[in-house]
């Protein structure tokens, strides 16, 4: 429904693009929770991140790997902070994972694709 309406307005020409072209990130741990700070590479992209990188989409992206997602906005840093619960096989010293401290959940989030206006996607593909 929303898609059709948007298409009618002529604003919906979008292409799916990995977050790595729009953001950088760092992640860490707090117990069995990993956090990922997602930071827009340019102020222009931040509203896109806020709109498209939703809790529901991030939860779907990490389905089977985490149990519960929270999101916080930091417009002052052009950043979103995600908490990925039960992401670390118990976390800390208990975890058997290579990434027991959630250090590379950052780039795992950057694999996610979001719809991006075609013009912007083309511009980013050139860089």
């Amino acid at each position, binding site marked *: 429904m929303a898609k059709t309406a948007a298409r009618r307005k002529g604003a919906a020409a979008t292409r799916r693009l990995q977050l790595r072209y729009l953001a950088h990130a760092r992640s860490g741990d707090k117990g*069995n929770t990993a956090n990922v700070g997602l930071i827009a590479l340019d102020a222009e992209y931040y509203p896109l991140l806020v709109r498209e990188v939703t809790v529901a989409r991030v939860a779907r992206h990490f389905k089977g790997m985490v149990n519960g997602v929270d999101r916080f906005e930091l417009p002052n840093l052009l950043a979103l902070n995600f908490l990925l619960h039960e992401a670390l096989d118990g976390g800390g010293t208990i975890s058997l994972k290579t990434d027991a401290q959630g250090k*590379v959940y950052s780039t795992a989030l950057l694999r996610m694709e979001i719809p991006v206006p075609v013009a912007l996607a083309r511009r980013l593909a050139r860089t």
Partner: protein
Amino acid sequence: MTGRDGRTVRIAAGQGFWGDWLEAPVRQVRGGPIDYLMMDYLAEVTMSIMQKQKSRDPSAGYARDFVPLMERILPDIVERGVRVTSNAGGVNPRGCAEAVLAVARRLGLPRKLRVGLVSGDDILGRLDELIGRGHALSDMETGRPLSDIRDRVLSANAYLGMAPIVEALRGRADVVVTGRVTDTGLTLGPIFHEFGWSPDDWDKVAAGTVAGHIIECGAQASGGNLLKGWRGVKGLADPGFPIAEASADGSFVITKHPGTGGVVSVASVTEQLVYEMGDPRSYITPDGVADFTSIQLRPAGRNRVRVSGIRGAPRTPMLKVSIAYFWGYKAVGTLVYAWPEAFDKAQAADRVLRQRLADLGLAFDQILTEFVGVDATHGRLSGPPHPDLPEVQLRVGVRAREKPPVERFTREIAPLVLTGPPSVTGFAGGRPAVEEVVAYWPALIDRREIEPHVRVEILEA
């Protein structure tokens, strides 16, 4: 010195964790003007490792490498008037302070060294009394009361804030050695001491907290582990560790010494700000609550970022307590499978191993298989592997409450070499080690139970 003119105080990060680059503190002291060197040694379970060492040797229980490090820099810090704040004391701050004093005596410094010793964070000996008086010390994550695991507790320490550090600096300590003082307290203490701010000026507390958070992980704020434009980060063989240049208005600049590698940029500071972040509106420390959504960053010259606008809220009546307890055992075994069909072979080996563990009737809390080169870092998000991978490392971990199944697991890895799928190597390390698992139990306690017990002493040598 910049700090003495009343305009700015320069606090330099020397260590971001126990095991950080040993040259960093030396270069921070010698590479340019600083007023304070702060060194954070304590991660969540570090205290339990130290407690274990202390139980074997009563003189141990602190970050041992702090002492030879101080031996290298004491002459410089005395000469330059640099003061040190560090939580290297772990579960034995007195032992640590005395070791530093012994080194000072041996060096024959031009004047006496004053060491501030902060204690009172260790509540291991008070646990039963506290539980008896109704403090449940429940796990902040699970809500379970501490009584569930009381008999397995190895260490228990309250997180202290800046107050004892300010007091030690007021007592003219050259080096302040503490136990479980928060990483941010090591930076807040010097700033509040120098500017004479009131500890209930919550915006100032929040500003100092943010400064502390930015520099507490060392080079991770100045080009280390920086993802944005990582190829362009030069000189990481000699990275400049971050320095916070605090001003009396509560703003500060993050920078590094000239001539060092790495980079201080809005990107490098932002990545560190979001590291280990929870709710950005309430970053809680013993000293106050900082609102990370109020932080303003702007470039202020080459390798300089100005941080301002930070708002804070009053401290909470509770202090966090870091409790470590014995959980059980774990082991991780690895083997490397070579081309062709490396991934298929590694998967087949994993099936064989799991069948053998099952046939032996071994019970584990968890068996985790990862294929390094295929999915170890990003799990199923990695997608299907390249069909012709040159090699794959099979990595299998197990954990259990009891030792025997884990012990037996460690003897099931090497046999796969001659009894499993072919083209296998990389077992030269021998049998994997059985590790004791010490787990972390975060809890809260009324600060009035802790603060009257905190002591600051000044020792001289």
